[in-house]
């Protein structure tokens, strides 16, 4: 019991406190533009968390987490425009990417595709979606009443409304709070999954697939389920992103796919909080680098990745916790 308190419920309680503090503090102090930006960061943090779970614990290096992110955003936008109400669009924005992850994962894992090809295939699928969405500019690419808009995306992506009441649109500060709650829930769910027997088997499969199989576990199923959960979380992230900006093909782009992986590496592979911190720090940094207009933010991001891999090969969070532990001992 004590161990469960320390490794699962304790961190969840801390995360709840942090979420409360952020929801209390930020909307009151930030200006509108900064608050919307903060919401974007939080949506990205959910995306980082999804890969932290799939890669860091499931051992599945998915280069295409952006595919589920984009699908979530587009599903939300298309459904919200068609329904005129976002109540049904939100669950769809989670279910459609999850369903897509389930289908893609089925072929990947039940086809026993090896790790390297898994990375290549997930990346390729993302780029195919990117190309496809980019080429939907003509009017025939309309789902119901929602034109996909090709390169321009869907600028009229509607913001969330109060559940069941389409006239009561949520304000940016309310959407921010919702996004933080979403991030917290994803974290809590991930923690609880990892504390369960299912989660332990997922980690065991990452550690040694053959051994898990020889102990009688169908590793394909465990990988498929964790991959699908990751797809669902990435879809949720896309939904929040669509709320702050609007959906466009860049959601599927190579730069997003790459960035997510950088967040996880810099933050610390094999942790949940690390990639979230890495994501938010790097977003702030690249945003700031962008405003300087001296240097390309992508160049900065690349430099940080190289430095992190050289100096902090374990990532930010594990390095810091390692230092603290060493400090305790001496």
């Amino acid at each position, binding site marked *: 019991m004590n161990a469960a308190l320390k490794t699962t419920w304790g961190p969840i309680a801390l995360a709840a406190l942090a979420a409360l503090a952020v929801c209390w503090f930020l909307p009151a102090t930030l200006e509108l533009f900064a608050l919307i930006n903060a919401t974007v960061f939080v949506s990205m943090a959910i995306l980082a968390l999804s890969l932290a779970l799939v890669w860091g614990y499931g051992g599945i290096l998915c280069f295409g987490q952006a595919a589920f992110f984009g699908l979530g955003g587009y599903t939300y936008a298309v459904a919200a425009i068609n329904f005129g109400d976002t109540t049904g669009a939100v669950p769809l924005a989670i279910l459609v990417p999850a369903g897509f992850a389930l289908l893609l994962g089925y072929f990947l894992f039940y086809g026993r595709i090896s790790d390297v090809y898994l990375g290549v295939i997930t990346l390729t699928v993302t780029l195919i979606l990117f190309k496809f969405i980019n080429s939907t500019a003509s009017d025939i690419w309309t789902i119901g009443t929602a034109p996909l808009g090709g390169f321009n995306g869907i600028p009229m992506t509607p913001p969330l409304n109060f559940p069941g009441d389409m006239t009561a649109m949520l304000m940016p500060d309310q959407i921010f709070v919702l996004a933080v709650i979403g991030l917290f829930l994803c974290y809590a769910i991930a923690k609880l999954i990892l504390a369960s027997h299912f989660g*332990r088997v997922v980690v065991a499969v990452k550690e040694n697939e053959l051994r898990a*199989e020889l102990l009688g576990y169908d590793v394909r199923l465990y990988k498929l389920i964790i991959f699908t959960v990751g797809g669902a979380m990435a879809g949720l992230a896309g939904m929040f992103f669509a709320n702050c900006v609007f959906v466009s093909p860049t959601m599927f782009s190579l730069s997003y796919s790459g960035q997510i992986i950088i967040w996880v590496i810099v933050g610390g592979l094999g942790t949940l909080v690390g990639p979230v911190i890495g994501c938010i720090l790097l977003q702030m940094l690249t945003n700031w680098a962008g405003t300087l207009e001296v240097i390309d933010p992508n160049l900065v991001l690349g430099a940080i990745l190289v430095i992190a891999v050289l100096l902090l090969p374990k990532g930010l969070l594990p390095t810091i916790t390692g230092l603290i532990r060493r400090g305790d001992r001496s």
Partner: protein
Amino acid sequence: MSAMLETSGLTMRFGGVVAVDRVDVKIHEGELRCLIGPNGAGKSTFFKCLTGQYKPTSGTVHLREHDVTGWDSFAIARLGVGIKTQVPSVFDGLTVRDSVLIAARRRYGAILARKRTDEVLGRIGIEDIAGKPVGLLSHGSRQLVELATVVASEPDLIILDEPTAGMTAEETARTAALIRQLNERHAIVVVEHDMQFIRSIAKTVTVFHQGRVLIEDKVDVVLNDPVVRDVYLGKEPIRAAVGRVAA
């Protein structure tokens, strides 16, 4: 006695090479069987066909009333077969206790699995390292940890591929005692080529040579058979000579 595991006409080809050639082997309930043979005799390939890591080219594998030919490893394991590979296959990032717990939990509920884990750690004699990450252990300890995970789900049949590979003499003796003890509850198939070890545990021995069963009999009969000496023990003087040069 009824056959617990039975192969008939089991054949595995890799291109033009026939690694296992029409092998018929019967293992009975509660038996302790050793499979021996020189390098390249097809022991390990046979092992992988039994455990679902290879799909045999032809022939069948029966486990009690099930025809398990071509089944996936996890499905075979679920029928109550514990499998230990040659190179220790363990969870490096987990502690010894967690590794065994995961193995036990496949069959038992949470509380029972915990009890079972403690019992197995004691039985294998690794309680003292239970809290350590498996990745930090010595090769011999890793072998024992793997054995513990294999035993944890209380399988009816345990298949061990070279359980003493890379062990010290003391660890080998301990493993031999352990295998005899395990045999009180489980049927065991051991694939080995350490003759000292075979002598200390074996009752019935099956000798593989060039993919086929050369002879199958009581251990002293087999070890005194001139043909077996030729194909297998004939290498002893060479090994002794190499040992002398190295020393």
